[in-house]
């Protein structure tokens, strides 16, 4: 078994309607300490997790959307967003948060975390993972 595994967190649910999005994010934050090769995939209603401007005062639930922008600090730098899922929902990348990370090897240059991929490309990435987490 390799020392470092490729772990992918597969997010397919909208936030707030169920807790899966939030408790999945909690796994990602804890998992960051394990020095594995981590990526996140957002598809189907999972793309809604990353939308801007979420405001939960009216429903009395914790707003966890700001935490996605901290993922770069946890060295989670590869976030795949599926193109077909965005399009079906009438969304573009501009509707999502701008997620970045700082590359230590390039004098802390700021880089994009989100990679827009179509379903076939995401299927290729998925087929190279050792473990997929599903919530």
């Amino acid at each position, binding site marked *: 078994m390799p020392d470092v595994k490729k772990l992918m967190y597969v997010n397919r649910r*909208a936030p707030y309607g169920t807790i899966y999005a939030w408790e999945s994010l909690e796994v990602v934050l804890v998992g960051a300490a394990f020095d594995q090769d981590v990526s996140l995939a957002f598809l189907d*209603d999972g793309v809604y997790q990353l939308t*801007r401007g*979420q*405001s939960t005062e*009216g429903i009395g639930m914790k707003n966890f959307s700001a935490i996605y922008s901290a993922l770069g600090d946890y060295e989670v730098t590869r976030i795949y967003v599926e193109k077909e899922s965005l399009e079906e*929902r009438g969304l573009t990348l501009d509707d999502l948060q701008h997620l970045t990370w700082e590359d230590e090897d390039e004098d802390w240059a700021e880089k994009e975390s989100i990679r827009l991929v179509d379903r076939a490309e995401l299927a290729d990435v998925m087929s190279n993972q050792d473990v997929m987490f599903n919530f």
Partner: protein
Amino acid sequence: MSILHIVNKSPYEKNSLDTAVGFVKNGDTVLLIEDAVYAAAKGGSVAAKLDGLDVSVLGSDLAARGIAEDRLIDGVSVVDYSGFVDLVEAKDSTQSWL
């Protein structure tokens, strides 16, 4: 008698909205709450399913999901929980399409 059709599931994930709209009669209202509010967002592939129906959306669920009111399809009413209660009162019965 009139029915308040309550839908709470994302129309992209579940068939609840599809079925619900098939049961809407004159005088009925469709109320979108929780993840169902995505159905009323402009540009989404399911939005046309609401054409010609009397549709209300729960504003706090919209706000939680970051959907500004100007992103809603035309003709949709935004209500708060008090408006939700009024709708239940105004219709003769409720049907939750879980």
